[in-house]
């Protein structure tokens, strides 16, 4: 699959009667990526997360186009093809176990329960998440283990477009190694984009790296 982004614009309107100004987060951004891993660096607020949320079909762009294999992709099509790991790992049901959460979100992605559970088990091994933690209630997990569950949810979809926003956040060394392996495997067939503020991890994970600044992708590596 090939991803092309042409002149992407995203403006968040100011709330009604707030007196604030609209926020232009993506300012005509262009990007091209084929199968493989592309790292995206940039300062806080440069628009990385908004770009990922737009590419995942979570939010809709105000201008420009997203093309997949040369064809314009609607936000609905993007939600079918993209798996997005958000920077905050808390978007789960706290009263349910990690495994029950993964089973539920697997169903939303069209995975039968058995398949969701089987994939969860295998990915947990790769990310150094124990069976006991998988069966633990989500709110009783450490922040790093929550991040592992969030990564499992993303990888278990085996999506052709993989969007990993700060995937290494909070992970222990073994999990980082496991994640690097998973990213490399996914990158053989999928378009994988990732952000990280760690230069070392970015270099280890991505074959090429780009830099974002004020809603645009600039030439050159992240600083």
């Amino acid at each position, binding site marked *: 699959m090939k991803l092309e982004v042409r002149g992407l614009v*995203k403006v*968040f*309107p100011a709330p009604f009667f707030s007196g604030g100004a609209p926020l232009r987060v993506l300012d005509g951004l262009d990007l091209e990526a084929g199968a493989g891993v592309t790292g995206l660096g940039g300062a806080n607020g440069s628009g990385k997360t*908004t770009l990922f*949320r737009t590419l*995942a*079909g*979570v*939010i*809709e762009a*105000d201008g420009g186009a997203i093309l997949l294999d040369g064809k314009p992709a609607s*936000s*609905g099509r993007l*939600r*079918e093809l993209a798996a*997005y790991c*958000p920077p*905050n790992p*808390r*978007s*789960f*049901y*706290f*009263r*349910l176990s990690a495994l*029950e959460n993964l*089973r*539920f*979100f697997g*169903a*939303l*992605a*069209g995975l*039968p*329960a058995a398949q969701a559970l089987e994939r969860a088990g295998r990915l947990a091994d790769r990310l150094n998440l124990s069976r006991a933690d998988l069966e633990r209630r989500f709110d009783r997990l450490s922040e790093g283990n929550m991040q592992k569950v969030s990564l499992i949810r993303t990888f278990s979809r085996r999506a052709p477009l993989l969007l990993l926003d700060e995937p290494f956040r909070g992970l222990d060394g073994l999990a980082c190694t496991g994640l690097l392996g998973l990213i490399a495997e996914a990158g053989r067939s999928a378009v994988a984009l990732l952000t990280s503020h760690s230069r070392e991890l970015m270099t280890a994970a991505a074959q090429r790296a780009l830099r974002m600044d004020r809603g645009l992708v600039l030439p050159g590596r992240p600083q």
Partner: protein
Amino acid sequence: MSARLISAFIRRDFLAESSYRLSFALGALATLANLAVFYYIGRLFGGTLAPELAPFGTDYFTYVFASLAFFGYIGTGAGSYAGRLRQEQTQGTLEAALSTPLRTLPFLAAMSAWNFLFATFELLVYALAGAFLFGLKFPAANWPVALLVFALSAACFAALGIISSCFVMLFKRGNPLAWVLNNFEGLLGGVYFPVAVLPGWLLAISNLLPVTYAVRAFQLALNRGAGLAEIKGDLLALAAFNLVLVPASVWLFELSVRRARKTGTLGEY
């Protein structure tokens, strides 16, 4: 896909709800306490027929008992969509759920499936309590017609509930439709007393609400065994409400999700 999705939502909600054990038990107790209040009101007034109850051919306790059971079920649709959506917003799971290929119709069908299932259980409790605790009997009931009224009313109230959830999607807090449903349906819809006791101007407003037709048709089918011909007007009114509200609710919900995606507020609460 839809059946799997609905069962996934039911499983999730069952697990979440059953983790709050005290809340579950208190809810069940509240239902019984409610019943007891109306039972003693019924005893106070004895079996005497109020003139407004004459068309229904029943006493006050039987009337209010049937209305509460009926309204409790159809009211589930009215309240649960907005409640569930708000819960997803505050938990931070709405955006994650709507980041998947989930389509609107299956999502709407699945979102409140647990609430309807639980309401069915409550309805059974009401029915058992009515039959064995309070000795209620409905010898004249026309059950097929009562079921038809039930289905039409449930669909209509679910549609109202979906429209109500659009306010939650867009404005997060402040839901005028829920406010009307919560505060005026009971007063104006004939749930606690026949609408015939209302003054003319309130009666006119009550005729604009689907609950009025729903409760009246249900009471007549249940207590008088009314057939299709006898409650034709109420059934047609409910069908007309459904014809407008059901497609409108799905369309408005899609529109509000689209708007939230556009403004980037899907994950806000």
